[in-house]
């Protein structure tokens, strides 16, 4: 689907902009929406898939914008306080 490809591209751009370091909240949201969009598309729920893919794209764009702004304002990568895990918490 076109929107899914757009969302994937936007996500890749956010990752390239170091969103993992500077905008992890937005990047994670984007990944989850994209995964859910793919799930919806695989079940032929196209309206839902479209909605989720668009939201994933929005979140990636926000992540990229924040990451670029934070990178340029800080000059260096900030150390994240606390010990947030790299993969969230598994429900398994």
């Amino acid at each position: 689907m076109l929107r899914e490809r757009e969302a994937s591209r936007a996500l890749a751009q956010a990752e390239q902009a170091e969103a993992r370091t500077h905008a992890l909240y937005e990047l994670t949201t984007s990944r989850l929406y994209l995964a859910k969009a793919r799930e919806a598309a695989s079940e032929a729920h196209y309206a839902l898939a479209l909605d989720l893919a668009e939201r994933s794209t929005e979140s990636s764009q926000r992540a990229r914008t924040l990451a670029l702004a934070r990178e340029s304002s800080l000059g260096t990568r900030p150390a994240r306080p606390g010990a947030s895990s790299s993969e969230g918490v598994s429900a398994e």
Partner: protein
Amino acid sequence: MSAAQLSLRVAALALGASGHVACAHGPSLGDRMADLDAIAREAREHGAYRCAPEELAIAEAELEFARSELGLGDPARAEEHLVRASANARAALRLSADPSCRASRPASPEASGPSKAERLSMTQPPLRRGSTKEHAAN
């Protein structure tokens, strides 16, 4: 007892049993969602956007997916999302309660992430799953 009376009695017993089982399951999905919503909100207020961004994002998104699935009549899938939301909302709250998180809390409004209004604007309209298989042209 006639066959009709017997059928009615069996149906009544089945209804009673199902009601009993439902009560034995504890709080409803809706109640649990409300509780988790409060936990995620509290974590956010304590600085989880900075100290546990990944956990907070997962908690909020999974909660939204759970709500959507429940609205669409799929409680089993809603439950799966709710389990993930629960684990991450609690982790976000725990991490945001860490003294290092509180000590590093900056004064700027941006530090707590997008405002509720901003988040709503990012997530509106609500997730929908329509009978739109014929509208796949995108």
